[in-house]
């Protein structure tokens, strides 16, 4: 009974509003989730998700169906999140992140909060390339090949980045200690 993503995308590209809405509805949660991985703050993730949804109205036309729809969509979300990241100043972001964290602390999950603070601090420090790779592989659980598809890089590059990420994190841990 379910029309496939690619079919819906084709219909939406042809001007079918209903198909477009179904498609968004189907993927809004993932869009938000990936955005959240990058921003760490719900409000920011919501903003990014909205930007993505809106841009899809135009971008769908360029979805040619040669990639899986989700792969294609992930790439758009990753790019939007990175854009957002660049626009936000580090201080605001950290400030917001701590706001989120302190909420969690009050929720008696101090440990989780600490880890979350560490996570976003680390993601911030490792830089754009490692950040997007970390999100796709560690948070979204994509294989290196899948992540490579999304990021439009070689699989070996993903593996190398993961290796780099581990090195970076170790360096950070040492600095902390």
């Amino acid at each position, binding site marked *: *009974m*379910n*029309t496939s993503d690619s079919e819906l995308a084709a219909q*939406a590209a042809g*001007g*079918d*509003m*209903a198909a*477009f*809405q*179904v498609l*968004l*509805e*189907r993927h*809004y*949660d993932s869009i*938000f*989730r990936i955005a*959240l*991985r990058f921003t*760490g703050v*719900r*409000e920011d*993730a*919501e903003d990014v*998700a*909205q930007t993505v*949804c*809106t*841009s*899809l*109205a*135009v971008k769908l036309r360029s979805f040619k169906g040669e990639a899986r729809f989700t792969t294609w969509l992930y790439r758009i979300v990753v790019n939007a999140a990175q854009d957002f990241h660049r626009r936000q100043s580090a201080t605001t972001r950290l400030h917001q992140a701590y706001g989120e964290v302190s909420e969690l602390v009050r929720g008696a999950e101090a440990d*989780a909060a600490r*880890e*979350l603070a*560490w*996570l976003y601090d*680390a993601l911030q420090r490792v830089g754009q390339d490692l950040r997007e790779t*970390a*999100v796709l592989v*560690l*948070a979204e659980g994509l294989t290196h090949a899948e992540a490579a598809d999304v990021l439009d890089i070689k699989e070996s590059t993903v593996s190398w980045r*993961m290796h780099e*990420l*581990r090195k970076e*994190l*170790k360096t*950070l*841990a040492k600095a902390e200690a």
Partner: protein
Amino acid sequence: MNDELNRMERAFERQATVRPSDAARQAAMRAATEAFHKENATVHQGTGIGSRLRERGNQLLIALKRKPFMDFAHPKLTHVLAGGASLAVLAIAVVNIDHIKPGIVFSPFETKMDEAELPADKDVVAALTDTKPVARLEENLPKTKEVRKQQSGAVQLSKRENDAIRAFSPHIVGGIVANEATSGLRSRDDTAVRQYREQGRDKFSDITPNPLKVVAKDPVSTFSIDVDTASYAFVRNALNNGVLPQKDAVRVEEMINYFDYGYQAPENRSEPFRANVSVMPTPWNTNTKLLRIGIKGFELPKTEAPKANLVFLIDTSGSMNAPDKLPLLLNSFKLLLSSLKPDDTVAIVTYAGSAGTVLEPTRVADRNKILSALERLNAGGSTAGAEGIRQAYQLAERQIDSAGVNRVILATDGDFNVGISDTGELKSFIERKRESGITLSVLGFGRGNYNDELMQALAQNGNGNAAYIDTLSEARKVLVEEAGSTLFTIAKDVKLQLEFNPATVSEYRLIGYETRLLNREDFNNDKVDAGDIGAGHTVTALYEITPVGAQGRLVDDLRYQSETAKPRSSGSAEEYAFMKIRYKLPDSDTSTLITAPVTRGSEAASVEQASRDDRFAASVAAFGQVLGGGRYTGSFSYDDVVALAQSAKGEDRFGYRAEFINLVRLAKSAAALEPGKQ
């Protein structure tokens, strides 16, 4: 080794519980929809055309359909169907099309008919006045003192409240609700309301018209009775929108059966129905004759009606938020209440959107409780209503009355996300429940995503019926006038078999019933399921037959061998065919056989001499066939249909036949495709 990476992975896992807020989700959908709208308006049509259309108010529909809109005021979507959410009030439920084609469309007041033909039906009027649209609007608004004060005077509402009202009153048109507050709203709400519309995903079984059969080769025709009328309502809805229905949506037998014919009814209950036959010349083909079989079920006096235990399973997915869906359903439901007995029970379960039991089984006498539960229903949300259907059946089982009617009534626009996702499993679930005495009926609403195929299949498996409800009048017809036949089965597994006499008939063709054909051997096999007849139902079947010796045979004799069947000695030249009907009483597993010959004695010499009902049935059959491609109707035109139907209109107490004639006229000018798909 991987400590750091693991730590990061775990931190991500913990974070996974953060959810987007509904407000953000809605805002995103709204923004995206708007962007999409803009994109498609500029790229595909040019804004010039769009605005021109909108200026010409009566063509608004075309604009609407080009860009399926959604209600901006309340844009929550569901995952499969998507749509805005909220309740609209009754007056609005039926007029969204009036907006565009004044005077053609079916409204509760049947505007297009003569005043004299208005059904003076208290129920409709009661339902109309009952709802007090504005009062209900107010109840649903945040009530601040200021607002209340303002409502008595000039209406000055905040944007949010105005949005809320707009969501509740998508299309208030023309004098139906003459009310200070609403008219104030109307003037304020002059931008086109963007109503969510599905488009082009209606699903129907493929229909190929029954082929012509040669009596010498295939003397026997067998089919199951079909009492559904959904196809007619769907066709009507399409035509009222200025669009020809897709061919597969046209099931001729359902169109014919939509109308009531004055067939002779059986005298008592022991004879559940009576079959009448007649023969007349075919209006669209001078060489052939129409053989009509009419079945009339026993009319159950209302006092004798068994107790009804009804569970409504209502789709509240976002897509139901259109004037012709949920609001219409709710008002239909109110009509139904009026036709039930105080001791009957009603329960409501919703799925998709707000899932769960909304109303525990409640006696109809407790009308207020039921009404207030109805008021609480609204469409929206994307939560899958897990187990909606099981819940509905559980409630029905709890109240089960072996002597009464136990039925689940599924109301939907095509979303079958009822908790069992596999169609096969769903069908067998319904079938198993049928064995335990609970039947299923399906009420279809809306267009665009209407899954007729599945609805029919489910209703057939559930021994219930499928009806398509497009207007409040239709709701009244199905749920009030025909409540008896809809609810009380008097005979089940009714099969019809006709054996043609090769001495008098050379070729024949069954009109319609394409989806109901049975094998010849199925007739005597009681295990084979077939259609049911409810109290008071009329069922009509038409065959077009070519008499022996007539011109215009479509199949020539063979040159090298003789195909002529050798008639038995008992084959009378007076008989066209021999009719056999098998049926089971509702609580029986073995069938009873009725037989009757179709003789020349029942034949009318000319179309004019045929009975009014027969002529009308013939005109509907002609219309259905022409709509479906007209393979066998030659040059018979819509005008011919109109002329024939006009001559057979008769008393037409409820205006159904007049409506039919209007539909035929509409078909002449209807576009072949919905504008948006061109």
